[in-house]
């Protein structure tokens, strides 16, 4: 990660290369978070672009009360959560309009699939992993992704999500147990690393 204070100074001076540096530094994590939350690559890409457009529009008002990265992840989390809410509203509307229709479910097949090292993972395990994380309640899923997948400190997760560190720990515990319960039959022969 770059020197945030120096980068922020360059951003406030309107240096174009600084914005590019900011985008290239933070976009991989923002995209992974969006993909993990939404489970759909196209929608995650939309959330990614939306996040950085919002960052560009609002960087002038960023006061530095939190870290730059934390502020960006908060915007990214909100972008994904808003999309999930819109998706639910659409599903609800569809149910109202199409009496007896199956409710739409979150796509679950777009994540966890491209790491070449994981070529040995069976399609069944990949599907179980994707379904398990898609089934995790949103409030737990975002904490799991930030804390365990992105390895963000609990305090930074708490700040990005506007919750207490104790709430982060509680949600993380529940998320891990939820995922572990669903993956347990597939874990017996795996090595921890």
């Amino acid at each position, binding site marked *: 990660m770059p020197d945030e204070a120096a980068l922020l100074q360059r951003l406030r001076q309107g240096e174009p290369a600084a914005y590019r540096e900011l985008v290239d530094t933070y976009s991989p994590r923002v995209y992974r978070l969006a993909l993990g939350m939404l489970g759909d*690559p196209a929608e995650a890409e939309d959330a990614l*672009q939306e996040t950085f457009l919002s960052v560009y529009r609002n960087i002038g008002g960023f006061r530095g009360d939190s870290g730059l990265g934390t502020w960006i992840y908060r915007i990214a989390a909100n972008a994904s959560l808003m999309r999930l809410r819109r998706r639910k509203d659409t599903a609800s509307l569809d149910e109202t309009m199409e009496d007896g229709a199956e409710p739409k479910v979150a796509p679950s097949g777009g994540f966890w699939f491209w*790491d070449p090292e994981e070529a040995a993972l069976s399609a069944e395990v990949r599907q179980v992993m994707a379904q398990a994380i898609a089934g995790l309640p949103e409030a737990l899923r975002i904490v799991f992704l930030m804390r365990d997948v992105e390895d963000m400190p609990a305090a930074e997760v708490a700040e990005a999500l506007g919750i207490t560190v104790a709430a982060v*720990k509680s949600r993380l515990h529940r998320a891990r147990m939820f995922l572990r319960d669903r993956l347990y039959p597939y*874990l017996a022969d795996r090595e921890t690393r």
Partner: protein
Amino acid sequence: MSQDAHCRQLLHRICEYMDGELDAGTCAQLEAHLAECPDCRTLLDSLRKTVALYRRCVPDDLPPDVRARLHAALNLDTPDAD
């Protein structure tokens, strides 16, 4: 304390243990329990494997096409774009 009570206590603190967030005394108590309780060792092992599985299945970088479209959407110069 009964074995079940020990297990419930461990379950409550196991994530903090995984994350190295317990004080030395509590950590030692839990490790003593783990040494004698195969069920709790299995739980801890499976939680670690679950996290490891998800952690190793994400890419480090943006897919190049996603990055190119992001730069285009933001009107960023891309002098070193592939």
